[in-house]
């Protein structure tokens, strides 16, 4: 009986502290998130004028959004123009998952981007894929905005 009481109290204290930390992390509001997908431009770099280097994903998702497909069509056009270039697609996950599963989901995200580039005429031997899972976040924050920036596939010039 006593034990149960101790447990209950301990649990309440834990809950209270979690609520407090949660409040503290939700103040940052730079950038935008739509339906869990990052739509801002923070951390985005450009492969060429108007050609963004990365696309973002929803939590636990690997499908491309309409905006992502548009970005990738621009990348495909740029790759067709620069036919000697090869690229690495680096797939990433946020920290809210187990390490091994996140490696797999990073690989799947990068391959979603790769498949799309291929349907726009880029040969698969110009594209390699590398998953970092959650090992290389671009934003070290522990809040939904930071996580949305980290769920990404980044196209990096390889030569």
């Amino acid at each position: 009986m006593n034990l149960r009481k101790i447990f209950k109290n301990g649990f309440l204290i834990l809950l209270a502290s979690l609520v407090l930390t949660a409040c503290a992390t939700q103040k940052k509001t730079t950038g935008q998130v739509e339906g869990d997908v990052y739509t801002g431009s923070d951390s985005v770099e450009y492969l060429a004028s108007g050609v963004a280097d990365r696309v973002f994903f929803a939590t636990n998702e690997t499908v491309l959004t309409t905006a992502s497909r548009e970005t990738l069509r621009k990348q495909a056009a740029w790759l067709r123009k620069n036919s000697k270039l090869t690229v690495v697609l680096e797939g990433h996950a946020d920290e809210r998952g187990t390490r091994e599963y996140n490696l797999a989901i990073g690989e799947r995200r990068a391959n979603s981007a790769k498949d799309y580039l291929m349907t726009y005429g880029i040969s698969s031997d110009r594209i390699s894929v590398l998953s970092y899972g959650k090992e290389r976040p671009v934003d070290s924050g522990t809040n939904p905005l930071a996580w949305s920036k980290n769920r990404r596939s980044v196209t990096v010039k390889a030569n």
Partner: protein
Amino acid sequence: MLFRYLFILLILLPIKSFALIEVDITRGNLSPLPVAVSPLSIDEDSRNSFKKILKKENIGSEISAIVENNLKQSGLFNPLNKDAFLQKPDIANLKPRFEDWNLIKAQALITGKVTFVDEKLRVEFRLWDVLAGKEMMALAFTTVPSNWRRVGHIISDKVYERLTGENGYFDTRIIYVSEEGPKTNRIKKLAIMDQDGFNNKYLTLGNELVLTPRFSPTNQMVTYLSYFKNLPRVYLLDIETGMQEVVGDFPGMTFAPRFSPDGKKIIMSFAENGNSDIYTMDLENRIVERITNHPSIDTSPSFSPDGKQITFNSDRSKYQQIYIMDSNGKNVKRISFGNGLYGTPVWSPRGDLIAFTKLHKGKFYIGVMRTDGTGERLLTENFYQEAPSWSPNGRVLIFYRETKTNSKGEGFSAKLWSIDLTGYNEKMVTTETDASDPSWSSLLTN
């Protein structure tokens, strides 16, 4: 031979009395057993010899301090303050005055003696039942002096075994990933240490990202993921020789490796075209077998101790859940059905339980369930924690937890933690640097 030092062990006297003291380890222990660990006695000559070799003032006290610390950390024992001890170590070892030890409420007493014999360390120790006034166990070891810490761990294991009826877990090591630097560019190295945090050694330099090291059953080898040359692949490392090799010849990322219980195979995931499936490779004949063939992500495989089954996590039901299957990939069965996502299943060395990480409503839990998925118990809850690994006796789990270092949610630290299977005795494991991905070895001496 890193783990095969000379160890001569002899039983001084037959164990004659049955134990009156018993420690029940199956429930949370709210009243740990009061135990007196008398410093091991040492004669002047031996003391001076060890001082020269080991740079320790009194090796007898040092060894008993290891025993004391181990017993205390287990949460099952309460080592009493030495200031209250009435009897001198050398006399206590010959014939304890039980009334004296009873007076300070000790129920068990550990005594012993250290001597320097033929350049070797000889340790004898005795375990006494204070209430019954009887000797419960007497053992002696001879080994090279540099093994002195391990002698402390072996004594701890023997005491634990005698009083709980279960195997100990103190003469063991932990392999883990040492972490330094900012979160966006962490430097990670493989590191190995004794279970109590001593004798820490780095096995890689930090030039490439390394993840998820796991011991082979004999503790000689480690399998892990390395990003050497930016090609994430499963590697095999011989701890003794430092030799490393890639496991298999896969055209893409291999990850999530573990050994089979007989040490002959490595089970892992291979990712290709956005799909991860589970494979094994035989280390002798290099034959690769595909175990799962499903368009979902199948990863984090772990064998049952008899090698007949495999548990893994898969998102074939849309989200990450835990499954079991036969070792040939047949009879796949989902076993986790609670709310939330389930990952990192690890089969207990006793065979009866699977430990896991659960993610639900923004919190991470370490828990256990029976192998049919019933009896789920969550042991600990936090903002972020994962990757449980079992102590060799299946009583304790070690895992890692990341915490924010200030109230604004800025900065973070990653540390190893251990918790008893009962959900009690949660403790941080001290490491030199930040740490993650712990893997517990089996007992070094059997």
